[in-house]
């Protein structure tokens, strides 16, 4: 979230799109209702399904799964056509006035693609700004130059007319108009609108561009950095924000530092390649500090090694190989991965094409599952999984883990708020907390490397792991998460003077501006620097005072960065430092005190001194982004599996999504001997026998793959079975009665899965390009373990991901639905 949970109360319009917040983030509705009661805010909901969120929305607009960019492009076009633009904001705080390389060609010129397309990748050399002799982007303050970002944007989205949009999305034009009207009305400086989104936005082959489309819209309306505005990702798990902050993804290190590549063999090369530069004196260009953060991280991990040695210890990834979720299982299926830790993960249910995933697990020599209950993943070899256990050679270990209330530590929620959580009870039996399990593993690994040596033992042997009491045996026992938290914040390793203040070795680093690139500081995650002071762990604070009355609660726990509750908040004030919205200011400049008041201000300097978007090189929000792999402006493409022709352009699907070549597909499929497994496992563009759009989702009563909730009687009572939601019209056509069993098949799974039909008025057929398109939906909460079991929707979903992130496409694919005949 750019903003935070209780900031939703300040919104004048709330757009929930790609999220079912009422079900998956029920507490958010406290603040949604607050905004409606206090500000008369309108709640808009755009979704393929009429959900529990839709039930309480002021306006609901239905869209066909996967057509978000068409809808949002239409909203952007509406804002431009109706002059609902915060002109001062986009001129001063965005790149709207920058001039783009004259050789750039957009999707309007090239029928759906951008200049530089070579095969399935873009050469992005034309996706750049024109710069002056100092290297600063050239501007046209009037934003009339045909090469200005604004004119290019306008031209791009002029094609997204209401007629074209509704033809693709299937939305009632009146509903579309209402959503556009209500939301774009927040372009006024004193108004703000917030966007709440989740996996319905991201889990598409163009999921990242869906989010980009939100950004473009919010920048045009001047809704970023302000109270009641922002782009707010509602994270899918209580600590998933923490897991990404701390680098639990292959392409990033803690604090979103880029992961070193094989071509970057020295720290010096890494720093040169990964430290952006800006020649604009008003740009803070925060990532310019990358060398300080990287040095501090290396020192946190290898305290006694010099920086270059520490860097050499970090494994490097191939420059071009993708190591994300789907490729891991692809390699596993081909027998290239020996062992796996499934640590609180249940891919046997949660991964796409889960049948294939379960077969891939059988290729492992060993599997360690660490969880609260026996999960489908740890039981992939059992009869319930539909396999003969005698054919499986994988050795499986199931380690009992401690649940959240049985361990101590920090949890970072969507508000970027890190809150300390205490242990309430001891875990049962021999269950251990994660840190204890990890420490045992580290100790044993170090012991084996010390005894047996190995190809490269130094990184393991020299790893700093001082999180507990040193026992007589020379090993760490009872590791403490408080010690880990201190290292994450970071401390001085030697006496050092910073900005005229002397810090002694061992002093906590007061904040990331004090981190050093010479190895004199360590910090396990620069973003969390400032979370612990010499006297207190700020994540433990529980002070409910709110002196400004704006809901910042600065003394309740701690949020990154630097306890700033709304990021980019310098964009909420004019050049004199006065807030655009007087009744809900975020920060304001006090000429008397010569200081910013309110929230913690973003970046340094007085009013008008610096550009507000400090994390991008030039300091201005990017309507035009060259960092995306699939285009600087979001463009509508159809889902890989779609029976609808894209009528915006000739490009049916995104040209740069990762497609698995035929050889790889054969290698994966043939030995698997999965019936019906063929190239189409990975997603198929032509499948006339599967005409129904299917989407998957969660319900409030269950959690993820159900590995925690399907063992709880009070929750299984509420939702005991898998179901398939469908319209009354479709059910009638197929002779299906509500509640009876149906078979759902896809090109990957022709034997299909069986579930209960849920015939409802809340689903309606779409009319797309004049033809009827039916849509169904299923939860992905069910598997073969637990008090209740049921068919897994992911046994149907395609093995294809987003062009930028490889997040799997769970939200739009094709199936067929038939009544089960007895």
């Amino acid at each position, binding site marked *: 979230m750019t903003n935070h949970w209780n900031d939703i109360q300040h919104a004048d319009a709330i757009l929930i799109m790609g999220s079912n917040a*009422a*079900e998956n983030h*029920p*507490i958010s*509705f*406290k603040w949604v*209702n607050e905004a409606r009661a206090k500000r008369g805010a309108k709640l808009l909901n755009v979704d393929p399904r*009429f959900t*529990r*969120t*839709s*039930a*309480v929305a002021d306006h609901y607009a239905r869209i066909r799964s996967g057509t978000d960019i068409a809808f949002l492009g239409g909203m952007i076009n509406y804002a431009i056509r109706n002059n609902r633009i915060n002109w001062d904001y986009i001129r001063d705080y965005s790149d709207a006035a920058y001039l783009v390389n004259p050789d750039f060609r957009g999707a309007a010129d090239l029928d759906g693609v951008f200049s530089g397309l070579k095969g399935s990748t873009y050469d992005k050399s034309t996706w750049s700004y024109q710069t002056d002799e100092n290297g600063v982007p050239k501007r046209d303050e009037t934003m009339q130059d045909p090469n200005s970002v604004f004119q290019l944007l306008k031209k791009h989205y002029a094609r997204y007319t209401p007629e074209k949009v509704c033809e693709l999305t299937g939305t009632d034009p009146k509903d579309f108009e209402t959503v556009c009207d209500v939301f774009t009305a927040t372009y006024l400086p004193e108004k703000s609108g917030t966007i709440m989104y989740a996996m319905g936005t991201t889990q598409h082959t163009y999921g990242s561009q869906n989010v980009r489309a939100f950004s473009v819209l919010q920048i045009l309306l001047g809704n970023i950095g302000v109270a009641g505005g922002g782009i707010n990702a509602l994270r899918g798990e209580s600590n998933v924000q923490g897991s990404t902050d701390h680098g639990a993804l292959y392409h990033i290190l803690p604090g979103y530092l880029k992961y070193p590549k094989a071509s970057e063999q020295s720290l010096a090369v890494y720093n040169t390649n990964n430290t952006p530069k800006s020649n604009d004196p008003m740009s803070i260009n925060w990532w310019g500090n990358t060398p300080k953060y990287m040095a501090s991280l290396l020192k946190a991990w290898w305290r006694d090694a010099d920086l270059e040695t520490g860097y050499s210890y970090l494994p490097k990834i191939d420059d071009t190989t993708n190591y994300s979720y789907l490729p891991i299982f692809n390699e596993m299926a081909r027998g290239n991965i020996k062992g796996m830790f499934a640590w609180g993960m249940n891919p046997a249910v949660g991964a796409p094409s889960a049948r294939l995933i379960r077969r891939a697990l059988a290729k492992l020599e060993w599997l360690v599952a660490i969880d609260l209950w026996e999960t489908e993943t740890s039981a992939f070899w059992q009869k319930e999984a539909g396999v003969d256990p005698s054919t499986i050679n994988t050795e499986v270990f199931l380690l009992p883990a401690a649940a959240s209330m049985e361990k101590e530590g920090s949890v970072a929620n969507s508000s970027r708020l890190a809150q300390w959580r205490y242990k309430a009870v001891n875990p049962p039996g021999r269950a251990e907390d994660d840190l204890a399990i990890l420490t045992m593993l580290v100790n044993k690994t170090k012991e084996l490397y010390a005894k047996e040596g190995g190809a490269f033992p130094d990184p393991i042997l020299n790893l700093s792991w001082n999180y507990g009491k040193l026992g007589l045996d020379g090993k760490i026992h009872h590791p403490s998460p408080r010690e880990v938290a201190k290292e994450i914040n970071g401390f001085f390793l030697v006496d050092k003077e910073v900005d005229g203040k002397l810090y002694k070795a061992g002093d906590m680093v007061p904040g990331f501006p004090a981190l050093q690139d010479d190895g004199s500081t360590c910090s396990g995650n620069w973003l969390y620097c400032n979370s612990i002071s010499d006297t207190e762990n700020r994540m433990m604070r529980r002070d409910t005072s709110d002196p400004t009355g704006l809901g910042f609660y600065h003394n309740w726990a701690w949020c990154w960065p630097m306890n700033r509750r709304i990021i980019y908040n310098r964009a909420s004030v004019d050049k004199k430092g006065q807030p655009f919205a007087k009744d809900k200011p975020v920060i304001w400049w006090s000429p008397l005190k010569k200081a910013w008041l309110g929230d913690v201000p973003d970046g340094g300097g007085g009013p008008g001194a610096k550009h507000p978007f400090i994390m991008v090189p030039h300091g201005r929000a990017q309507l035009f982004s060259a960092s995306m792999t699939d285009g600087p402006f979001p463009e509508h493409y159809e889902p890989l599996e779609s029976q609808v022709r894209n009528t915006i352009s000739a490009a049916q699907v995104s040209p740069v999504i990762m497609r698995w070549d035929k050889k790889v597909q054969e290698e994966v499929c043939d030995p698997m001997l999965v019936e019906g497994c063929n190239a189409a496992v990975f997603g198929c563009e032509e499948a006339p026998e599967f005409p129904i759009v299917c989407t998957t989702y969660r*319900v*409030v*009563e269950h959690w993820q793959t159900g590995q925690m909730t399907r063992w709880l*009687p*009070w*929750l*299984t*009572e*509420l*939702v*005991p*079975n898998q*179901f398939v939601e469908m319209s009354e019209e479709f059910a009638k056509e197929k002779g299906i009665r*509500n*509640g009876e069993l149906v078979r759902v098949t896809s090109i990957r799974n022709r034997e299909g899965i069986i579930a*209960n*039909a*849920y*015939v*409802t*008025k*809340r689903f309606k057929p779409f009319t797309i390009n004049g033809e009827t398109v039916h849509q169904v939906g299923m939860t992905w909460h069910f598997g073969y373990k637990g008090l209740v079991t049921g068919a897994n929707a992911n046994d149907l979903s395609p093995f294809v991901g987003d062009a930028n992130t490889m997040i799997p496409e769970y939200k739009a694919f094709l199936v067929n639905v038939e009544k089960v005949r007895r």
Partner: protein
Amino acid sequence: MTEYIKLIDLTKCTGCRGCQVACKNWNGLPAEKTQFIGSLQNPADLSYDTWCLIRFDEIENGSGLKWVMRHDACMHCDWPACVKACPSPGALVKTETGAVVHDPNFCIGCKACTVACPFDIPRYSAVNENISKCTLCYDRITDGRKPACVTSCPTGCLTFGPKAEMQVRARARAAEISGVVYPNNPKYQTNVLYIMPAEIRAAQLQHMNPNPKMPTTVLWWKNLFKPFTLIGMGAVAGAAMLHYMVRGPHEPEKKEGGE
């Protein structure tokens, strides 16, 4: 002791069913074995072990589709039909907090309350031979806490407070959304109130009595026939006493045969 009201604002319910689980948790009620019934509603109905249930109704009319989720539990009537109908003193009691509580120790399992209740709330268990229902968390509210369901509600749909204050709030909210307060029968008031949205009427929702009132059968029985039965019972007792005085105590019959 303060008299309370629980207010249910149907415009704010998101059907998260936190209340349904919190009720089971606080009251130690077991889960039922359920099956999908073609709706998210589950269990399908209130029961001996389910005192609070979110009911889901899909209503399509001129103003489009409405998906109404309704928290259904005891209404805690001012003049409770169940208490009126109950023949066993102490089994069902209207307390000064407004809560109608039941005590299984005094319940004789006659099911009179289950027939009398205009909201079909008390449920009988043949196994336990008594009834059970929502107590408005009497054990919590007399300890200064809110009922478990209200505490769990994230959206502000369920609120709880002193009667006069909540009545004002209910009327204000109903006026704000051009809706109505349910029940709106001045002769039959309750310590639980609903805010009904303008476009939804009670008759459109499952298990919602559009016109709740004291059943006439209960009145007939309790006000008219009960005195006669009491006279009858007194007469029987009197006759027995007379018999005792005239004939002496009943002697056990001597067994024939012996040893």
